[in-house]
């Protein structure tokens, strides 16, 4: 397993290289944003540990560029920035996990393991519907290459709609696939979630079949690839 460690503090870098090496990973180290961007683009890493406050190029920018270059490598952000607004920005840029300094080495290793396991897990192919893309491996969706921010309930709903795109799916069917047995259900919640999805992917991608249910369709002019 090959890991890219991006950290500008020499002491912390030395310690982390040692800890990651002890845990059995091959570690490359980048001390600034430009080097990190280059390495991440060039080498096939299994995971990246990324600091945000970096010289030359900010960590969030580096991450956004990777994602724009279609680098799907799982990224764990390791930073002193602990505010929720910063965490939200990190995940919006395409991070897979976020750990704030100071931290315990075990926690970093545990999270890294989980990240690698997750990305190795499912091998299901990507789903597409027009400009809409869903990557079940990373549990991530994007539209025109822009990552969508979805809760797991919204993701589940979109996933189900994409698997059955073009078909009208009843509310009852959607509720059953959205919630487990013990979650309270009422059919109004489906409307709430459809509303939220429409806000995020555009109102015309989900058609309402009155009295029957909903149907996911590509926009007119978009190529269909089911």
């Amino acid at each position, binding site marked *: 397993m090959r890991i890219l460690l991006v950290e500008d503090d020499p*002491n912390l870098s030395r310690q982390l290289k040692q800890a990651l090496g002890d845990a059995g990973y091959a570690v490359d180290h980048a001390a600034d944003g430009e080097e990190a961007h280059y390495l991440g683009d060039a080498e096939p890493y299994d995971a990246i540990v990324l600091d945000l406050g970096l010289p030359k190029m900010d960590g969030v920018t580096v991450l956004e560029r990777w994602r724009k270059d279609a680098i799907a490598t799982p990224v764990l952000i390791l930073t*002193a920035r602990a505010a*929720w607004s910063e*965490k939200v920005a990190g995940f919006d840029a395409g*991070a897979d996990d976020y750990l704030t*300094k*100071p931290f*315990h080495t075990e926690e970093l290793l545990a*999270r890294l393991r989980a990240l690698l396991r997750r990305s190795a897990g499912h091998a299901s192919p990507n789903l597409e519907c027009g400009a809409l893309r869903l990557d079940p491996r990373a549990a991530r969706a994007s539209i025109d290459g822009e990552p969508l921010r979805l*809760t797991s309930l919204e993701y589940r709903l979109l996933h189900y709609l994409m698997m059955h795109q073009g078909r009208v799916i009843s509310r009852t069917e959607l509720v059953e696939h959205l919630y487990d047995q013990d979650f309270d259900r009422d059919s109004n919640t489906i409307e709430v979630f459809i509303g939220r999805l429409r806000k995020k992917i555009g109102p015309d991608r989900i058609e309402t079949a009155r009295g029957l249910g909903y149907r996911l369709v590509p926009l007119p002019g978009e190529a269909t690839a089911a």
Partner: protein
Amino acid sequence: MSAARRRPSLVRRLVILAAGWSAVALLVTGILLTTAFHQASLRRFDLVLSDVTQGLLAGSTVQDGQVVAPLLTDARALRVYSGRYWQIAEHAPGGRMRPLVRSRSLFDQELPVPGEVLASIAADPGKEFYYDTRGPLGQPLRAMAMQVSLPGRAAPVILMAAEDRSPLDAEARRFAYLTAGALVMLGAGILIAVMVQVRVGLRPLFDLRRAIADVRKGKTDRLAGDYPEELEPLAAELNALIVHNQEVVERQRTHVGNLAHALKTPLSVMLTEAHQTPGSLSEVVSHQAELMRGQVDHHLRRARAAARAQAPGERTQVEPVLDELAPTIERVCMPKDVVIDWRAPEDLWFRGERQDLLEIAGNVIENAGKWCKGKVRVTAAPVSPERFTLVVEDDGPGLPPERRGEVLKRGARLDESAPGSGLGLAIVDELARAYGGELTLGDSAMGGLKVELTLPRAEA
């Protein structure tokens, strides 16, 4: 400031001044008008009396020492007690007078003349003297007397005429009432006009007040709109103050953030180093580093919160904040699968900064995510125009009532096995208090803890 000591409002001041001035002006006008009217009618009245006397003077003759009055054709002078009288008299000893001839209307009465009038007549013959007296039926009379000499008679005679003045008085009274009524109406009209004028004139001031209230409520972040040249500098200064305030807050936050970031990496190094070289020293370092981290977090957040809660003019829509937080926290909680089901009305606004709502809601929901078995429910709902609640529930083990006080104490950590600094809810409690809100803990129907936050709401 107590109501008694407060200075009177501008509106009241202006209205009272204008009303007082108008009242005085109207009163003087009323008095002048009625007086002028009264005098004019009296002069006209006196002319009639003068005519009668002149008629007497022209027509009276002396035959055999007896004064003979002319035949006056005035019917009213013939009818008994009609109210119009005349009389020719002469001086009698003792400052009195004796009637010689009188109008039929007087019947057997005589027209009285006060002593001092009699004296004045004697002193100034040929001059007309007017006076008020009482007639035969107690009628108020306007009377005139004049001393003349008649050819053929040595002793002068006094010509007198009188007429009931009650029609005159009644007319004057009617005029006074009419004038008073008209002036009172005019006064009321002026008062209303003044009030309208003051309200309209001061409207920019009320607009300014409303605009400032909007800034404080968080509807806008600066005073907008055109103000008259007297208020424009004030509005500009207020805007400058608001901007300055925001800059100070921003600068403070930057300093605070820099300090936080500068301290956290060395702390990480200490923790990692201590962990990699076990021993009694590393245990102490490890423990102290943890304490420092807690202190840094606590005081930084506090400083930020205190700086922000004072900054006016901020409001934040609740729905997008939850929309950002829910997916983020689901990922932060990985590898545990946490499903966050959240609901918030679209038109619900928090009166405060987005960063703070993110911190408050983020920490509460993350705490629920840490303890839940897999499900977290978040519900935001308005409770009044001023407040809304944010309820966060989970299906975890919950918290027995007797331990709920501890969890809000700074640094308290109920279970060392759960990740995190243990500061989460205490930080939320402090932030909520900085905004005048509160945090209460209870049992959720889902089985776990229910955290209910009451927070200030801004108008949509």
